[in-house]
């Protein structure tokens, strides 16, 4: 299309500006974590790493971090297992209700988190309380797994569709049994998509707050919950800054990795 040079330049400048706006808030947090001031002030008054050491020594942060890691690992394992199974079912077999399943998997990320949260909350209070299972790590893991399934599912399904079933059929024709086929043919082809899905699922679970709020109860606290609780306490602000800065850096890595490993299916959004 023959756009004038000026129009091209204007579009380019506009796009650059939007990108800048996308990244400025993240940079502000990063820079501010080295700000020695106790209350928030901009521009920073100097350079100091004292809040970093303070944050690392903070008991609440450490406990919350460990809880988050546990919840993330639990939810990711469940999501890996169920997401892969669902993807296989949808990609390799035809059965009644196949379309319904692909819709069902997407629903937890299509509906607002607060709806999922309340739905799980009311289900847990109604069904689990009578059995003596209260809110805690278990309910958080179940809650997270419901929306983590979809990222694993998307990644594995994209891979399975691209590879096709011919390799598995060939393996069967050559005399391999089902287990051997899975071990030597199917698993190696989907391995990298599993890793990508798992990384994204973990990142999702680690970051999630809404569903967590409704499923965690009073006994445990994940890292995002800790941040949210301390957000309104002025003397915790510098520590939050550091935690937030860590999260920004820690997030860039797995996402970048999973982008390389997946077929671009990672774009599937959420919240």
């Amino acid at each position, binding site marked *: *299309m023959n*756009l004038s040079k000026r*129009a091209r330049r204007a*579009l380019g400048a*506009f*796009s650059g500006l*939007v*990108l800048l706006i*996308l990244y400025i808030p*993240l940079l*502000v*947090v990063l820079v501010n974590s080295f700000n020695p001031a106790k209350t*928030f*002030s*901009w*521009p920073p008054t100097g350079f100091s790493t004292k809040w970093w050491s303070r944050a690392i020594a903070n008991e609440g942060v450490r406990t919350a971090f460990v809880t988050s890691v546990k919840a993330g690992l639990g939810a990711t394992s469940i999501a890996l297992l*169920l997401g892969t*199974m*669902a993807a296989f*079912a949808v990609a390799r077999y035809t059965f009644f209700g196949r379309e319904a*399943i692909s819709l*069902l*998997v997407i629903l*937890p990320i*299509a*509906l*607002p*988190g*607060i*709806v*999922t949260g*309340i*739905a799980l*909350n*009311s*289900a847990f*209070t109604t069904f689990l309380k009578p059995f003596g299972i209260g809110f805690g790590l278990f309910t958080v893991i*179940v809650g997270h*797994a*419901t929306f983590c*399934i979809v990222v694993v599912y998307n990644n594995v399904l994209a891979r399975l569709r691209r590879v096709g079933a011919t390799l598995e059929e060939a393996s069967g024709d050559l005399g391999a049994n089902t287990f051997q086929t899975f071990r030597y043919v199917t698993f190696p082809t989907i391995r990298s998509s599993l890793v990508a899905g798992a990384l*994204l699922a973990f990142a999702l679970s*680690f*970051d999630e*707050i809404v569903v967590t*709020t409704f499923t965690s109860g009073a006994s445990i606290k994940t890292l*995002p919950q800790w*941040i*949210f609780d301390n*957000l309104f306490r002025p003397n915790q602000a510098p520590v939050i*800054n550091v935690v*937030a800065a860590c*999260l*920004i850096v820690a*997030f860039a890595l797995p*996402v*970048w990795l999973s*982008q390389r490993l997946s077929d671009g299916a990672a*774009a599937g*959004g959420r919240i």
Partner: protein
Amino acid sequence: MLWLVVAYLGSLIVMFVAAFWSTNDFTGALVRKFTTNNFHTLITESVYRTIAVRSIVVASIVTIVDAVVAIPIAFFMAKILSPRWRRIMVALVLLPLWASYLVKAYAWRTIFSEGGVLAWVASPFNIHTPGYGLGATTAVLAYLWLPYMILPVFAGLERLPDSLLDASSDLGANAWRTFRTIVLPITYPAFIAGSIFTFSLSMGDYIIVKIVGGKSQLFANVVYDNIGTAGNLPFAAAAAMVPVVTIIAYLLMVRRSGALDNL
């Protein structure tokens, strides 16, 4: 699979049923008896109507702002950049999407706060910054969901063959006319696909309001406050129906455009 059916659909059904229960005024215990009181309160109390309308307006503004920003940038990515730079741009747009939601919200809190970045930028010009409030909420929501709008519109534009644009200009249309009569109609389904995300995500958000919203609440806050501080699960469940119904209504409204096939 059973997991999702039981854990998720089951939960949704329980929530729906719970919306018709009530709590004992005195003890706060659940009373499992069918009543439509919750919905009655929702409809008759004017405060809930105000908040519902405010939420829908905010969600619509967020959607429109995102579309206005996303269409030029998506066009630039799809039609002007070289393939190599295009890939880099897509990655650059995607990356903030995965940065922690709470961290981004927090970052904006520091930007909008008194003595924050925005106040610092505005002070030489003697502009008074509005601080926390509905405006800040709308801006942050638009910021958060922008990639959800850019990506579908970009994907839609990428499928649009260049020859169409060339043909239009060969036939004598100027750039603006080509944009209006060729590009816009073709991006429309992609815009709808993106708007489903921006609209429904905005409808369901209460965290941003808490962080930068000041006093003006959105509907999800009604839900949250009822379950959090008041412990009134049935009323919260009934209130949660409002965003759900709004989103479903929106989905039905846009289904005719065929955008749902593009999701």
